[in-house]
């Protein structure tokens, strides 16, 4: 009897507590900068695609929603021939972002991506690429990697020593 009256009173008091509902379309909820939403492909500071088509994101992806094909262009850089994310499968887990060795694939605080047609949930490379470097402003993979591309020979990368001619060594 007492417990019934007590629960009545406790519930009644909630008339005067703040409601927790956020009326979403009018009132946008705060999303943390590292919120895991829509996936983008970023570019390095020079404006080139960061993605080197290593396939690690596709391997890490639990629902297998990423598919891509590697190609090598004239100046020796690797890039994806196509890069496709099926957002109707994507679970926004962020494992692709963790797996990416070049910071190319990143998740953004945007979740408003409803479509009337399921096929429109499949994003191609043009849809995924953005014009900026995303969360990492300075990083460029090819400036650090030892791979030779046009405009950067062996030993010219940041922190890389000049190559050693093994035949010149006096043993």
């Amino acid at each position: 009897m007492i417990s019934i009256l007590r629960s009545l009173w406790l519930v009644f008091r909630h008339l005067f507590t703040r409601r927790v509902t956020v009326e979403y379309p009018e009132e946008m909820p705060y999303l943390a900068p590292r919120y895991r939403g829509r996936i983008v492909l970023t570019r390095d500071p020079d404006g080139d695609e960061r993605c080197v088509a290593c396939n690690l994101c596709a391997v890490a992806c639990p629902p297998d929603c990423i598919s891509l094909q590697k190609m090598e262009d004239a100046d020796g850089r690797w890039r994806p021939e196509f890069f496709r994310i099926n957002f109707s499968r994507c679970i926004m887990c962020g494992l692709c972002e963790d797996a990416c060795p070049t910071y190319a694939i990143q998740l953004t605080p945007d979740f408003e991506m409803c479509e009337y047609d399921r096929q429109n949930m499949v994003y191609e490379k043009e849809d995924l690429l953005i014009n900026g470097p995303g969360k990492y402003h300075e990083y460029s993979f090819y400036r650090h990697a030892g791979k030779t591309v046009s405009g950067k020979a062996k030993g010219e990368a940041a922190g890389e020593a000049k190559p050693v001619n093994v035949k010149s060594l006096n043993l």
Partner: protein
Amino acid sequence: MNTGHADIAMTLLNIFGVLTTAVLLTALLTWGERRLLGFWQDRPGPNRVGPFGLMQVVADMIKLFFKEDFIPRFADAPVFLLAPTIVMATTLLAFVVVPFSPAVGVIDMHIGLLFFLAMSALAVYSVVLGAYASGNKYALLGGLRAAAQTVSYEVFMGLSLMGVVMLAGSFDLRSIVMAQENGWFLLPQMLGCAIFLVAGIAESHRLPLDLPEAEHELTAGFHTEYSGMKFGLFFVGEYLSILLISALVTTLFLGGWLGPWLPPLVWFALKTFALVCLFILLRAALPRPRYDQLMAFGWKVMLPLALLNLVVTGSVLIWRG
């Protein structure tokens, strides 16, 4: 001749006024309940359609009217169609005897209280017939529960009111209100009021005593097979009986329209509104008891208490002379 016409006009005005107000308030109550439940659960409730979500009522009505009017193949069609109308009819009929204010009220019957008890007892036919005609096992179980619950709770619902009748010396609701001019019956009949309220919740199948519906056990209980406006009628009937029970508690225990300063009708409305809010609060706060607990509670606790209330009230009245 002229006065005769005026009388008829007044009566018709009263009848249609009460009818329209009752049905309109019921419609509003569907919105009010959801809104209040929302506030008590820290959310806004329906607030999208119209100002404060008031048009939700209209939207719901349009939806219910345009739904397919479906009668299952295995249902007993005539009874299936008849059942939802009974609850509406009996509950609206019971409103006839409620005295809303000195001027408003359809008729004054010498047996007003008995008439109300008879009508609320008839309302169970709606549930039982609807459940039986559905040809569905869950509906049948709900109907069985409704029958048992109503029979059990009807007994002490009547008994709990006899204290009031003894104090007022009349079954006429208007005289009962007049008898409370020197103090509401809530004080001398506190026990009777509590018992009547519990019985009223059971009669109107409201949470926490909505065992005939019991969504988590019986799908939707007696109205499992009902859809569209037939389902709507059951619902309107339920809300009408909330209003009716609240209006009656107001009349019998809270002094009806009596009160200082404000006009009588406002006092009546305020008291009824507070009781309706209590009904909704009960729904928001309390879980549903098990079926055997409900029956045991009815027969082993409420019935003896109602009898005790009757005996004590009678003794006091005789002792006073």
